[in-house]
């Protein structure tokens, strides 16, 4: 066996348990490729398609309700067909995925940004600080995020005029989902911080009078952030589902910048009259996207932290 010293970083990378596990999990590899392609297609949409489905002037009602290209009446310009207003479904999906991914990732970023600091503070200091933060988190955790997001959305909808609401709908959505899901990150981070704070290196850091803020940032944070980020991967999938659900219920993003959920809601009206493709392809995209992210998250969790399983 080669000793570790004579190996290049590439050898080490290939030899690493994680790489090994990844290369021996075809499902995970496939999920990673699919996710990557979807992200590229979503954010590269302006380059990849010439259609601009959500600029009102660019649509032609002549092209409305075209089925996918392989159906008898389909045309090759619209691979996945068009909707009731002549929008190209494929282009709509690409832009819709962009909205879904943006909302999903930014809202998780917000939950993590709230959850990790609160979790570290609760776990490190303990006592009444801990009790206060975690009791609040526990209460919030019993209420499903989707209900909280609905409430926040409902409140902003009530207090703002509909024009203003339309403009800030997406930020509001991100904040609602983000505020609704922080407790789980706080919980994981807290349990990590509680373990770390008892370790000798923290005692050593305190002994040389490292400022508390620095102890938290330099020592506790790097050691507790891992499991949180793994859960955050699955959190992205959950956030995308919440966003899609809210949009499906008609309280999420407005139809002018539709997400996948909005597209499914619009298409759902045509499902029973035979135009199945309007709702089918966005729904399929949503499911494949969420499934891929979930598969990656599941694999990460199993590989890095067998105990979380």
């Amino acid at each position, binding site marked *: 066996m080669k000793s570790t010293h004579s190996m290049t970083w590439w050898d080490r990378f290939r030899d690493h348990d994680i790489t090994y596990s990844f290369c021996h999990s075809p499902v995970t590899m496939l999920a990673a490729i699919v996710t990557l392609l979807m992200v590229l297609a979503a954010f590269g949409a302006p380059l990849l398609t010439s259609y601009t489905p959500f600029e009102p002037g660019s649509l032609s009602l002549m092209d409305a309700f075209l089925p996918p290209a392989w159906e008898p009446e389909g045309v090759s310009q619209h691979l996945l067909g068009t909707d009731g207003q002549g929008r190209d479904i494929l282009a709509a999906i690409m832009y819709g995925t962009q909205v879904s991914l943006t909302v999903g990732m930014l809202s998780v970023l917000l939950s993590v940004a709230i959850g990790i600091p609160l979790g570290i503070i609760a776990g490190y200091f303990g006592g009444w600080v801990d009790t206060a933060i975690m009791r609040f988190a526990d209460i919030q955790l019993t209420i499903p995020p989707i209900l909280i997001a609905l409430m926040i959305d409902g409140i902003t909808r009530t207090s703002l005029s509909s024009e203003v609401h339309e403009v800030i709908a997406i930020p509001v959505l991100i904040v609602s989902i983000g505020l609704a899901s922080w407790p789980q990150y706080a919980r994981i981070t807290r349990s990590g911080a509680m373990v770390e704070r008892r370790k000798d290196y923290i005692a050593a850091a305190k002994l040389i009078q490292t400022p508390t803020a620095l102890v938290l940032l330099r020592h506790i944070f790097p050691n507790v952030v891992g499991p949180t980020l793994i859960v955050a991967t699955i959190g992205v999938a959950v956030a995308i*589902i919440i966003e899609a659900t809210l949009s499906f219920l008609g309280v999420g993003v407005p139809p002018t910048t539709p997400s996948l959920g909005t597209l*499914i809601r619009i298409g759902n009206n045509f499902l029973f009259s035979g135009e199945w493709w309007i709702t089918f392809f966005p729904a399929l995209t949503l499911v494949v996207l969420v499934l891929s992210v979930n598969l990656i998250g599941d694999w990460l969790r199993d590989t890095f932290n067998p105990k979380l399983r």
Partner: protein
Amino acid sequence: MINFISKRLIQSLIVMLVVALISFFLFNFVGDPVSNMVGQETTIKDMNALRERLGLNDPFLVQFGRFLGDALHGDFGISYRLQRPVEELIAERMPATLELVFVSAVFAVVLGISGGLFTGLKRNHWFSKFILTSSLVGVSLPTFIIGILLIYIFAVKLNWLPSFGRGDVVKLAGGWSTGLLTLSGWKAIILPAITLALYQMTLILRIIRSEMLEVMRTDFIKFARARGLKSRDINYGHALKNTLIPVITVTGLQVGSLIAFSIITETVFQWPGMGSLFIQAVQFADVPVMSAYLVLVAFFFVLINLIVDLLYFVVDPRLRAEIKG
């Protein structure tokens, strides 16, 4: 024991009070209820009259006191949109939601626990792998897509089951209308109940599985094996019983979530329950309905948490000792 229960009850009461306060703020300070209710052509005079009638001109404390008193009597005001007392609307729709939630809960708990046990105990069995893979697909399918799919297959294509509504309902004493006594009612509840249950079932299944795997690694299971106990005794007597605490927690939470998730299912299946009432309230900024729904859902959550706490008490001797001592 009595000490423990009363402590829990006080905690629950505090939670309810906080929710009531939030709900009151929502009711009172969010938007202008009057302008939300009336058409464009209403005069200012009419609007003021309406304001007076709804009690929106009284001082803050008077309003909160009245709100609390009214809420205790089950009075949540008048719906802006439907111009009817909120408690009437909710009473009409509560049976539909609770029956849907009950049927789904039974479905989710029974299948979730048995599936979780199977996959936890026979982790390398092909059927376990099948269940696990499909459970991952299960958590990746948003509820509304499952609903649409089921409608498309069983209502549109096969025409076996209705795609919306509750079927025929029977009025019971106390104004409760049930769909569980008619054939069409049962037919109507199947699809929405499955839709609602699937996600929660998957979560229950996964948590039981992972708890079983965790417990199977503990020293006392190893020691039980080393004493030559029968696997049946080890699996169900020792392992399962030790997973009960987290399982009760999660199951309780999930049953609570069913009430909230019924919003989606009710929308997809046009189920005449509280969820669809609520979603319309959000869309039309019908604040009294929103706040009443919030209080009611919080009440159910608190109730479920209380039951969960009592179950802990039954299961875990350490907890019993802590409370005694």
